[in-house]
């Protein structure tokens, strides 16, 4: 073989080598560039308040997605939210936002979609139409009421205004006051009653958790209670905290109230919220803790909490916290069932939101689990000792639940 032929062969080999490497690199680039085609599209997720709400399709999308991402009870709620989507999306698409009849139809659809939700704080307010409100838990209680009358109604206010102060509270100890407070944008009366019963029991009633807004009339009532608690007379054998008919309120009040009766932190349950957009994306359970207050004294006497079917939210949480004390007892009836604490939506990326400026959704930001492992959302917290009020007893001047509390303390 000639020298020239050898050179040519070597050159050809080099060219082949070069081309084969080039084709490998080209092939790799081709493969790498085709990587992304195997993934599903990741579309933008919009916050419900950012939808325009200019038509019912838009309103529905914002509401459904807002619920899908923000509602915290999907792990325990039996509502089939996907079925809601497939059923109601086409129905809303047929409605005209500028038509009154269609607006009323839309309200019916909203009620049907949310009727089974277990969140018992859950309330829809149709801010874009007539400002009407709809609460699934209240509707359910109405149905129960048709079978068991009076099951949704609070005890008469006269029970706390006159019957208890006049019949039960020792005359010289009675403290009673009413102030005006604001809760969730609504002004309401904040009423408190305190005093001793039979000189043996320290009693406190209050109708909402609004201690931070206490005015000149309620402050002396609370001061009396907490001052007496701090220097408990030897004659006192027990304490009654009455949250019957209490609609809840500010979370910090629990520390202020119960934190005055303990000297070590009290863990009484757990909360968790969302940490992602998926229905089942949750944070770990965080312990629910009552923190002792400065100057608190450890109360070892029986502490009875009176709560009933109209004790809601913080009233229920307080009942559970007291129930978890070794000397705590819950007497009354099963509570409302709205246990999940609320916070502004931005705190947890969960809970309340407005959908397309048409409907405001009031819903829990977190889920609560009691120390016993049960979640009482939508069910209500069962009492340790079940005692029901009756009209007959009330009209004869008796508070059967308070009687049971007195009897319990006298026997312990």
């Amino acid at each position, binding site marked *: 073989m000639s020298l020239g032929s050898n050179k040519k062969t070597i050159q050809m080999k080099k060219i082949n080598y070069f081309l*084969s*490497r080039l084709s*490998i*690199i080209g*092939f*790799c680039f*081709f*493969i*790498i560039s*085709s*990587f992304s085609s*195997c*993934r*599903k599209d*990741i*579309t*933008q*997720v*919009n*916050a*419900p308040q*950012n939808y325009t709400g200019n038509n019912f399709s838009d309103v529905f999308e914002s509401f*459904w*997605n807002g619920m*899908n991402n923000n509602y915290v009870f999907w792990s325990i709620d039996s509502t089939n*939210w*996907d079925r809601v*989507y*497939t059923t109601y999306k086409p129905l809303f698409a047929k409605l005209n936002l500028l038509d009154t009849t269609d607006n009323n139809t839309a309200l019916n659809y909203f009620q049907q979609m949310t009727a089974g939700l277990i969140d018992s704080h859950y309330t829809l307010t149709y801010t874009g139409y007539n400002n009407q409100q709809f609460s699934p838990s209240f509707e359910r209680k109405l149905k129960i009421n048709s079978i068991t009358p009076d099951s949704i109604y609070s005890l008469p206010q006269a029970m706390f205004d006159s019957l208890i102060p006049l019949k039960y509270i020792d005359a010289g100890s009675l403290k009673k006051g009413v102030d005006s407070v604001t809760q969730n944008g609504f002004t309401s009366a904040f009423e408190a009653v305190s005093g001793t019963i039979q000189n043996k029991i320290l009693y406190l009633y209050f109708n909402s958790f609004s201690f*931070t807004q206490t005015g000149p009339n309620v402050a002396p009532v609370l001061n009396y209670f907490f001052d007496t608690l701090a220097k408990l007379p030897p004659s006192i054998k027990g304490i009654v905290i009455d949250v019957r008919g209490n609609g809840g309120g*500010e*979370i*910090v009040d629990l*520390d*202020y109230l119960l934190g005055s009766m303990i000297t070590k932190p009290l863990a009484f*349950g757990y*909360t968790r*919220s969302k*940490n*992602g*957009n*998926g*229905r*089942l*994306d949750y*944070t*770990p359970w*965080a*312990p*629910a*803790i009552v*923190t002792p*207050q400065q100057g608190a004294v450890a109360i070892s006497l029986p502490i009875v909490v009176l709560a009933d079917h109209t004790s809601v939210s913080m009233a229920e949480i307080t009942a559970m916290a007291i129930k978890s004390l070794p000397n705590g007892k819950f007497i009354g009836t099963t509570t409302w069932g709205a246990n999940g*604490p609320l*916070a502004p939506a*931005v*705190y*947890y*990326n969960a809970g309340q939101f407005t959908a397309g400026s048409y409907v405001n959704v009031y819903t829990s930001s977190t889920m*609560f689990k009691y120390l016993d492992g049960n979640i009482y959302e939508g069910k209500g917290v069962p009492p340790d000792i079940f005692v029901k009020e009756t009209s007959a007893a009330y009209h004869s001047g008796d508070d059967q639940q308070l009687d049971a509390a007195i009897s319990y303390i006298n026997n312990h």
Partner: protein
Amino acid sequence: MSIRQLTLFISLIILGLPAITRAQFFIGLEAGGNKNSLITNNSNQAFTSYDSKSGISVGVPILYEVNDWFALRASPSYMQKNYTINRTGFFNGIYQDNINGYLQLPLMGQFSFGDDQLKGYVNLGVYGAYWLSGKVKGSEANVLNPVDSSYTTVAPSNIAGINNLYPYNEKYTFNPTKDNRMEFGWIAGIGISYETNNGNRFFIEGRRTYSFTDQQKKYMINQTPRYNDTYGINVGFLMSLDNLSGRY
């Protein structure tokens, strides 16, 4: 290109090889670090970002060298694919590190170039992985452990001034409805290997694993997918099985 097409292509290369002149098996050990990102969308969540997080990987590379420029490579390995969820602004301090361990089996074709001792190479293939374990570490605002700020006059500058933060560090409990523990994807790498006089090889390699399976099962409408995307660098060595068996 679909997986099927790629598999076919690789098969053709292997079957079409004109001559297997010095087929040789290698086995070794590799370890390295990586940075994983969870590719998703959370633009509806205020003051919240998904950030990449570093992790580790260890594996046992197995190389079947078909000829001087092509080899098949498998590398059963344990690989972390971590990411962090961070709250920002007023919520700074709330976060969750997601430490996810995967058992991964990449199958790659390795294309080499260079001289006998120092070679450059490119890997390309597919992998299957099983989400073996998870751990979550972070801090959340504890709604039922409030800072009693309402009774003070200090305006909070951070969420920790309203709710005490709850630090946690616990095993992640898989949810069979939500979590897709099988993962498949592409894998590509580029590296340099150095062969010693006794035929063993040391290598350093940059690698990208690119999942095309959602980290979640399809369990709801309008579900936003989540994909792992990992860049790593591994160092390791390969020993010829001939050397191990005493044949030179």
